[in-house]
């Protein structure tokens, strides 16, 4: 039995998420649907019986962060969601994710899930301290690493290269047949769009950084 206050919190969270959804509908970039240029990213998305529009979501040069998102129906939470895209690359990340095993979804916990891509067609994912059920996941997995959990299929570092040279990378993709498809940290990098070549920071090689010189003082740190 859910106490009233918790119901309100969940309802409030769903309300907040829905409000965010309305705003982000205009910028939705469904994975795989965009095959022509324009970099985009989103931190989390779900379709099916559980619906979460891409949140936060960016397309074209932009950068959005959300401190935390409560998943609907008490399914868990995600913190420090970030989606950013620029002319040359895109990145999406979620820190501190917890999906409770329910609604057909397996339990998923991670300290950090991140996907990145760049216009030269490179993509990568990173999973720090991530587990699906009791199954720990490696930090760097090869592209399109699948995990078969019976009715649940999981794809890590899912990468799709399109005919036009653009690339999609999704760090974690979970499908429960006929129930829900959940994607965490997904990016798209297109061809075209000027890649802003970095200028050298120093005219020739930068001089070696000097060693620190300790200064007398006090800093309160966590022991």
């Amino acid at each position: 039995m859910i106490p009233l206050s918790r119901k309100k919190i969940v309802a409030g969270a769903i309300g907040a998420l829905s409000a965010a959804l309305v705003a982000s509908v205009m910028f939705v970039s469904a994975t795989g649907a965009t095959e022509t240029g324009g970099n985009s990213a989103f931190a989390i998305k779900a379709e099916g019986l559980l619906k979460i529009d891409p949140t936060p979501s960016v397309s074209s040069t932009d950068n959005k962060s959300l401190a935390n998102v409560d998943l609907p129906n008490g399914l868990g939470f995600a913190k420090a969601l970030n989606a950013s895209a620029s002319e040359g690359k895109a990145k999406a990340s979620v820190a501190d994710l917890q999906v409770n095993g329910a609604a057909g979804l397996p339990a998923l916990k991670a300290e950090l899930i991140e996907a990145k891509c760049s216009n030269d067609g490179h993509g990568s994912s990173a999973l720090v301290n991530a587990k699906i059920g009791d199954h720990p996941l490696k930090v760097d997995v090869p592209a399109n690493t699948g995990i078969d959990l019976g009715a649940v299929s999981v794809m890590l570092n899912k990468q799709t290269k399109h005919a036009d040279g653009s690339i999609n990378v999704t760090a974690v993709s979970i499908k429960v047949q006929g129930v829900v498809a959940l994607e965490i940290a997904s990016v798209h990098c297109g061809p075209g769009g000027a890649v802003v070549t970095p200028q050298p920071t120093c005219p020739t090689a930068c001089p070696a950084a000097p060693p620190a010189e300790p200064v007398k003082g006090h800093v309160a740190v966590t022991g």
Partner: protein
Amino acid sequence: MRLIAAFGAAIVVLCAAACSGGDSSSDNSAASQPVDLSKLTEVNTFTTVSGAPLEPRSHVGTSTGEVIHPRNVLPIYDRVNGKAIAKLPTTQMGAPSWVPIIAKQGDWAEVLLPSRPNGAAGWIHLTPGAADAAQDNYIINVDRAAFSMELVESGKSLGKWTIGTGKSEHPTPVGQAYIIAAIEETVTNYSPIILPLSYHSNSLETFGGGAGTVGIHTWPNNSFLGKPSSDGCIRVTKEVLDKLVKLPLGTIVNIT
């Protein structure tokens, strides 16, 4: 009268730092507008920056290797030609400010910041004279599960040591931090020198009167080795501390 003249001079300085050399930026870009630094949050261990891009990743072994020291207070932007969200002071805790560059676009550099939230980064426009730049090829890699720290220089391991980390209620946070300063302690006495990092505890908003800053330091006895015992700090032996205090400020510390 003098105050107004000083203010006028300050505006000119701000403009020079933030909007000179507009060849790569359009005239309409935010970076071309004079920035009122007085309205921006200064980044340091006590402040929180909102609207900063978050770069919480930890990439063991990777870094641009470049660190910069602002010659004047510099505006920090949320993206290239974006909105000014904070300012980078020339000092941190009494030491010169050095921040690591994690990405470049044209003459813009994305740097890690010492403020909350963990992973906060921002873009600096490196116009001529804006900052000193240097090469720092050291990286510290901390593996919490293995209670180990490795010091790497240009990809070569200089040593790997057993450390202590945060206990389960107050774990050492994961991410890509950097060394803000080297402080020769005048108040606490558990470590002669403390290296405060740019990261903060995720479980403690404040600690010991401070901001919950995570640091690297030693301890009066070796009871911490291989154990989660601190409130977030990374504890090393005195021998290891002596090596770390010689590293440049801005050295990246990857924590997994």
